[in-house]
């Protein structure tokens, strides 16, 4: 697969001003609401520490807690399956659907199923799974990946949805009120619910001590998919397990507040057994997670609880859209997670970052995203996976920064270039910086020259200070 060029994809979205402004505004509002709710809770920062520690504790005893979860869930009458790869995950679910002769299945938003492209897999085999979450359904009907893990269609304007629903669901293309569009969706899904034979869902937290799962959602579609049909299949990554039910309280208090600045989701649901007459299965997916766990450098990405706070706060994400990452996990967490899925394909993502550090500040479980961005850039450079021009720049920088002398040469060359090269060359593709910036007026001298010229004067003024020692370094 070709390498994702987020910069190029994002540039297209930036030029689309109405969509970009709406995306930016909606997500920044969520971030501001997050701050408001978080600041009203005195123990908020303490909770983030605890949530991080519980995840670290669980991950460092993951075999133990997975075994405990499996034992208790099995005792509760739930069938547990293990999948090393997306193919195995999809095949397990496909076979279950086939054995039950399922023709209508609905799914409440599952990231793991998206990660495995379950829908695509079963569609190729003649089966259709209906996304029941409004945002996911919009994206499914539009044959597009989600833009955001919490609000999948937030990059669309209401007109886009009205046009799409008119085409696919026969609604009025001129009515763009979200209340009306939600009504169209509700009526469409109600017809499915009358006859669903299987429901699928994701898992926010799997509770080891009780063998149950907790799912947090707003629309009711997840719960309907869970309790109405005779077959329920949940899908989760191995890192979703937490030790105790009491621990769920801490994560639920953090999750929706971090995601959208709301105190809780409308439905905080726990399933511990199948309903009478129902069959329930949980597929536990690895897909590289156990390998990630074994990396001393980036195992902490597994702490992520998929709240999306890092996306809402990211100045790059908000203005370039989630689709520009061409990844299941987008935004800051995507930049540090996707390269571990496919280094070549996602090697450029860690460069889509301004180093503001905001993602690290809002993460409810303290995934060190800013540090991991640097880690992955290092890996890209070492393995020559990033853009060719980056590679050349990095090689040149390494040479230039080797000594004070070579750096001085570089500075002089840059000044000479600014003064003497023709404008068309300075603004050409060799200098992508000039795409959106004007080149500066060439200064009279380099900073180093300026510094030397004023050196004597400063030395005199600071004779007795520490600065003296610093200034007398051989520059």
């Amino acid at each position: 697969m070709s390498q994702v060029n987020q910069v190029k994809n994002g540039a297209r979205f930036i030029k689309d001003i109405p969509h970009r402004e709406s995306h930016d505004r909606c997500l920044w509002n969520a971030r501001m609401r997050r701050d408001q709710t978080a600041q009203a809770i005195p123990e908020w920062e303490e909770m983030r520490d605890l949530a991080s520690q519980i995840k670290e504790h669980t991950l460092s005893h993951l075999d133990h807690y997975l075994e405990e979860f499996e034992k208790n869930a099995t005792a509760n009458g739930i069938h547990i399956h293990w999948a090393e790869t997306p193919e195995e995950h999809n095949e397990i679910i496909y076979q279950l659907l086939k054995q039950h002769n399922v023709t209508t299945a609905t799914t409440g938003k599952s990231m793991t199923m998206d990660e495995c492209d379950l829908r695509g897999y079963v569609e190729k085999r003649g089966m259709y799974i209906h996304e029941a979450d409004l945002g996911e359904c919009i994206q499914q009907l539009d044959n597009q990946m989600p833009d955001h893990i919490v609000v999948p269609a937030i990059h669309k304007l209401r007109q886009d949805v009205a046009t799409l629903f008119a085409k696919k669901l026969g609604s009025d293309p001129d009515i763009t009120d979200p209340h009306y569009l939600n009504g169209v969706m509700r009526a469409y899904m109600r017809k499915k619910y009358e006859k669903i034979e299987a429901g699928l869902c994701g898992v926010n937290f799997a509770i080891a001590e009780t063998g149950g799962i907790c799912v947090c959602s707003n629309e009711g579609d997840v719960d309907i998919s869970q309790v109405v049909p005779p077959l329920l299949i949940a899908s989760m990554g191995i890192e979703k397990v937490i030790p105790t039910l009491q621990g769920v309280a801490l994560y639920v208090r953090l999750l929706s507040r971090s995601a959208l600045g709301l105190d809780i989701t409308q439905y905080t649901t726990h399933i511990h057994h199948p309903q009478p007459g129902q069959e329930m299965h949980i597929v536990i997916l690895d897909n590289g997670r156990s390998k990630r766990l074994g990396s001393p450098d980036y195992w902490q990405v597994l702490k992520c609880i998929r709240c999306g706070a890092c996306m809402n706060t990211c100045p790059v994400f908000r203005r370039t859209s989630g689709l520009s990452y061409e990844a299941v996990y987008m935004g800051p967490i995507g930049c540090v997670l996707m390269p571990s899925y496919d280094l070549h394909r996602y090697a450029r993502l860690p460069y889509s970052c301004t180093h503001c550090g905001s993602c690290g500040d809002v993460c409810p479980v303290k995934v060190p995203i800013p540090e991991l961005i640097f880690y992955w850039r290092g890996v890209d450079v070492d393995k020559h996976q990033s853009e060719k021009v980056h590679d050349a720049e990095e090689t040149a920088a390494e040479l230039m920064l080797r000594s004070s002398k070579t750096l001085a040469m570089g500075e002089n060359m840059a000044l000479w270039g600014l003064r003497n090269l023709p404008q068309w060359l300075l603004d050409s593709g060799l200098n992508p910086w000039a795409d959106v910036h004007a080149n500066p007026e060439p200064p009279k001298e380099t900073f180093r020259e300026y510094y030397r010229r004023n050196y004597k004067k400063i030395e005199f003024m600071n004779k007795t200070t520490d600065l003296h020692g610093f200034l007398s370094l051989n520059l």
Partner: protein
Amino acid sequence: MIDTSKARSAIFERIRAGKPAAVEAPTVPLYGWPGDKVENFIKQLEAFDGRAQRFDSRADAIAWLEKNVDWRNKRVCSQLPDFKGTVSAADYPDPHKCTDISATVVESHLGVGEMGSLYLTDAELGGVPAIALLCLDLFVLINEADIVDGLHTAYAAVKDTMREQPYACFFSGPSATADIEAVHVTGAQGATSLTALIYSAPQPPQRGSSHPDSGC
């Protein structure tokens, strides 16, 4: 069913070989939530577009229901011993059929002031959770003594009993979505309204055995 034991051993083998050095489990304090529990509950429930009505007695709450539930050619599903609907959960051996319910009336034994949440399980929903999901209007009675301060207290109250329930959910307002331009729309796919009927009782009522701690 596909045998996945081979995948299981491979996954466990990699976890055991690579898991990070043991990190100790922290102790999580039972954080409370300041302020008046019932007032917080009402404020938060309303913030989630839920409605709250307060009554001096359970009888008053029931009388209010008689008057305010929409009876016109509608199916009213009640799980209360002292309020008779037109149907009950027992009439729905097939939960798919619950789409014809207009109003569902149930009682919760645990409310959460911090979020305005109402805890409902199969026990309160007559073993058919769909009655609270596929109905249009959801009415939930709650004794004000059953409202606790915060979510930690709520989980502590149910930690020994939740496991017995196939379905257990904190309902916080009616279903909602903000998926189109972040415009908040109440009434997504679950119930389109949720009304809490909070009553005070001179004496704590007998509680079901599945909720021994729910009043704490």
